[in-house]
């Protein structure tokens, strides 16, 4: 049986070996074997040949054995601490977004060719931490900033998503955005817009309902100049091409 490697990276990190393909693995992680719902899941498939020496992938492959009765092993945890920082960006293959009911959408990664204008932007860090941040920095700049180990607050590597901050005619956050404290977000955005701060933490433990509905451009992973961007399709495209997934993801 083929052994695949997946990096779980939604609010916690773990490298997992599995005999399941991404769709089955996503369904298993979200739904469980005995209907133990664990919620939305996000993971990146890893090319073991490009991981290098940081993790002994051959040993990891050998440890993932089928069950005695011959059934495939669904998950064999290889690493559950500092996994993200040890896995090189070039080994990261497709990003998989799994809904609560176990439907998986695969996103292809690409290099970020064109940087956006500076902010304000809102990012949700998904790994290794999970804070909601607003910043005047564009994604690339923000990733570089947050992974600059010279800064007192930094990570070796980060996985994050930039989120919608659409506003209405009155300048308030759009009514369709499901954030818990929109006024607070607006205030934070105003602070970084005014240049008083480059970044500001909105919420250390955000609980964003209907998360997949709040994604703006996509997901970013990396550090310094080694960065990968997973663009998120438009809502129209999601509804058109991935209708079942989108209905589930948007709580249809």
């Amino acid at each position, binding site marked *: 049986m083929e052994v695949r490697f997946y990096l779980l990276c939604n609010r916690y990190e773990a490298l997992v070996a599995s005999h399941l393909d991404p769709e*089955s693995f996503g*369904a298993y992680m979200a*739904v469980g*074997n*005995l*209907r133990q*719902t664990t*919620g939305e899941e996000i993971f990146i498939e890893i090319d073991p040949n490009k991981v290098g020496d940081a993790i002994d992938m051959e040993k990891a492959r050998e440890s993932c054995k089928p069950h005695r009765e011959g059934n495939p092993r669904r998950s064999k945890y290889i690493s559950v601490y500092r996994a993200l920082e040890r896995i090189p960006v070039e080994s990261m293959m497709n990003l998989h977004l799994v*809904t*609560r*009911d*176990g439907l998986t959408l695969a996103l292809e990664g690409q290099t970020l060719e064109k940087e956006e204008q500076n902010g304000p932007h809102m990012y949700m860090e998904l790994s290794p931490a999970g804070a909601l941040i607003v910043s005047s920095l564009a994604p690339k700049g923000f990733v570089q900033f947050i992974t600059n180990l010279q800064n007192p607050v930094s990570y070796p590597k980060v996985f994050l998503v930039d989120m919608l901050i659409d506003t209405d005619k009155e300048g308030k956050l759009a*009514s*369709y*955005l*499901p*954030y*818990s404290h*929109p006024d607070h977000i607006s205030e934070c955005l105003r602070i970084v817009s005014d240049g008083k701060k480059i970044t500001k933490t909105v919420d250390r433990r955000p609980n964003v*309902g*209907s*998360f997949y*509905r709040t994604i703006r451009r996509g997901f970013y992973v990396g550090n310094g100049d080694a960065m990968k961007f997973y663009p998120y399709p438009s809502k129209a495209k999601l*509804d*058109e091409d991935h*209708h*079942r997934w989108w*209905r*589930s993801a*948007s*709580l*249809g």
Partner: protein
Amino acid sequence: MNKSRVPVVATMIALALMAGMAGAQPDGAAAVADEFNRQLPMWWFLAPLCSIIALGSAAFFYRSMMKEAEGSPRMKEIASYVREGAYAYLRRQYLVVGIFFVVVFVLLLFMAIGLNVQHYLVPFAFMPSGFFSGLAGFFGMKTATSAASRTAHAASQSLNKGLRVAFRSGAVMGLTVVGLALLDNSIWFLYLYKFHHTIFGGEPMTMETITMVMICFGMGASSQALFARVGGGIYTKAADVGADLVGKVEAGIPEDDPRNPATIADNVGDNVGDVAGMGADLYESYAGAILAAAALGVAAASTQGLSSEVMFNYMVAPAILAAVGILASVVGILVVRANEDATMTTLLHALDRGIYLASALIVVAAVGVVMILGLPWSILWSIMIGLALGLVIGKGTEWATSAEYKPTQNIAEQSTTGPATLIIGGIAEGMLSTWIPILAVCLGMMSSFALAGGFTDLFMGLYGIGIAAVGMLSTLGITLATDAYGPISDNAGGIAEMADMPKEVRERTDMLDSLGNTTAAIGKGFAIGSAALTALALLASYVESIRVGIHREAAAAYTAPAPTGNDIFHVKDLGFGKFGVYIAGSSGSETENRLYTVSAIQTKSSHSVRLMVDEGPRAGEVLDLVIADLGHHARRMNLVDVEGNSLADNRASLDDFMIFYNVTLTNPKVLVGVFLGVLLVFVFSAMTMKAVGRAAAAMVNEVRRQFREKPGIMQGTETPDYARCVAISTAGAQKEMILPSFLALLVPIAVGLVLSVSGVMGMLVGTLCAGFAMAVYMANAGGAWDNAKKYIEAGHHGGKGSDSHKAAVVGDTVGDPFKDTSGPSLNILIKLTSIVSIVFAGLIVKFAPMIGQFLGIGY
């Protein structure tokens, strides 16, 4: 002939027939020339003819729908699951109801033959009215469950085609209900009026007897409606809550996802609640309104001393109005269509256009009916008031529940501060929303009463109200079509999702579904409003049933001596202020006794007659009496009292009965009755809501079990056991509907036996007022919570998944049994208490005084 033109042609023939009749004023000789071989005027046949046109049109629409393609194999498969579930429910429902009907049949038979407090035809007529009501529900369900997949497939061709298939399938339900109700009514009237006495001998039935016996027939329809509404309401919400709480909230599965084991039961529930339940409910309102108005018409003509010819016209006018309403409805149904670029507003206008056209046609036709039947022009006002009332209540409900308007938007806004404020907001808006239908009914009641001359002639005023109820329901063929359209389009949307149909098809079915949500809410308001008006007419009819009950009791005690000299009658004190005045000649049979009996009650009114009592505790006394009723032969005798006053000229008015039974607010029995009526509404609502809770819990456990034991369901590799969920919902509904249903049936009888007529009158008033307000409140609060959630889902206050949305989901779940179980079931409760009181009036009249005396609370 182009088959699509069949309903049009049939309608035109009927209209032409009516137009032809317009020139021919009913001839007294033609109408009731020979008392024994009664002739029916030609225009009377409009009622059975139109009922057949309704059924023919329904059959035509059904066949047209069945000719449409059902879509892909997957669509067929899903539709077959829903159809099988619906039939499984109906089989179980009819079995339980069948047992109930047999028990009640035996009870009514015992009352008629053993206790002699009931007309012997009532048990036999009780069964068919229930059967016809059930049949209407069956046809409605059969059509709706076949139409959903065809609507989805038609929507893949065009929006207009989808609308037409769904709406005309809904029309099958509407037209079947009005057709069967009017046909049942016409057949029984024909039999009682023309054939009963020729088959079984004896004198022809008086029109008073015919109308009172026919009102009792309504109990079959009421009972069927009660079970359909309560059972259907419990079923649909148990399935809905089970599907939502486990499938959507716990498992995160979207709406109408085939992985949800309860999704088929949920789709079946839409049909069970809003097709079979609503159909049976309105069948009962429709039949009840016609029969109550007919009884009031006879009473009005009788108290005015009008000729039997005019009385006949008053009696059948409601049925004729209903008949022209059917024709207008068919025309209205045919004009409903939409453009391809239709928006939600234009779709709603398309339906409105059909209803408005039908209403306008009825007003025009009513002018002809009033002229042909020689009715007072004030009746035309009553018809127009009734029609306007239906529209006002419908629009009022739309205002109170649609997300387009402030009340629902206010509720949605309160979701931003959590579920508690959202619940408070919904309760407040629901309570506030009662002002439109209640004031509309008050205004309609007062104006139809006043314009019909009620302040100088009470029964004429009540007749005006009865006609207003008939006017309101005259468009039922099309209004019920818009209602039954709701679950069809809802199911069509579900099938489109489950069968992975293309985006444009799903958008079309979504649009049709949204329209269905609005029309369903409007239909609920219409049903409640019509229940209130019908119940009011039935309240007046109850007094007439007391009159009949007293007469029946007096006749049962018939002891006439041979006439000697001028003493041509014999007065017997029956106790408790009731007297039998008997003339010789009866053969001793129950029917003959009634013909030779004059029943009377003691009074102090100015139009009393003075009679010396020959037999009983007060023998030898000369007492002031008013005549409750005169048997057929007694009417011909021109009987006079000791002072030479004619007995026939001194019949008890409604006021006399009120005085005799002390129906005044100072009588504690009346007030206690009012309280008990209010209590009945609250306890009944609580029982139905608790029933939903229990049935839903069973469904929740089953769905959880399936997810737990069949992991392949979530991964799409294993098919859920849909049938098990359907069976659980069915069993839960059947089990849970028994107690509330029996409560509704037994309380009026118990109150009557203990608190007598005054207590029953109080109870009916309490039930009517509290039930009407409560039903409107529950339906509107539930509808508003539902639409507040949809409003948020459309992208307001954070949209789906936000905290506001979570609060709205709580509100919607609370509102589900409000709007789909307890609220609609109250419609039936209001009417059923009246009908049960009417049917059991003879029993109350005879035994309540004895029980009251035994308990020391008077009689």
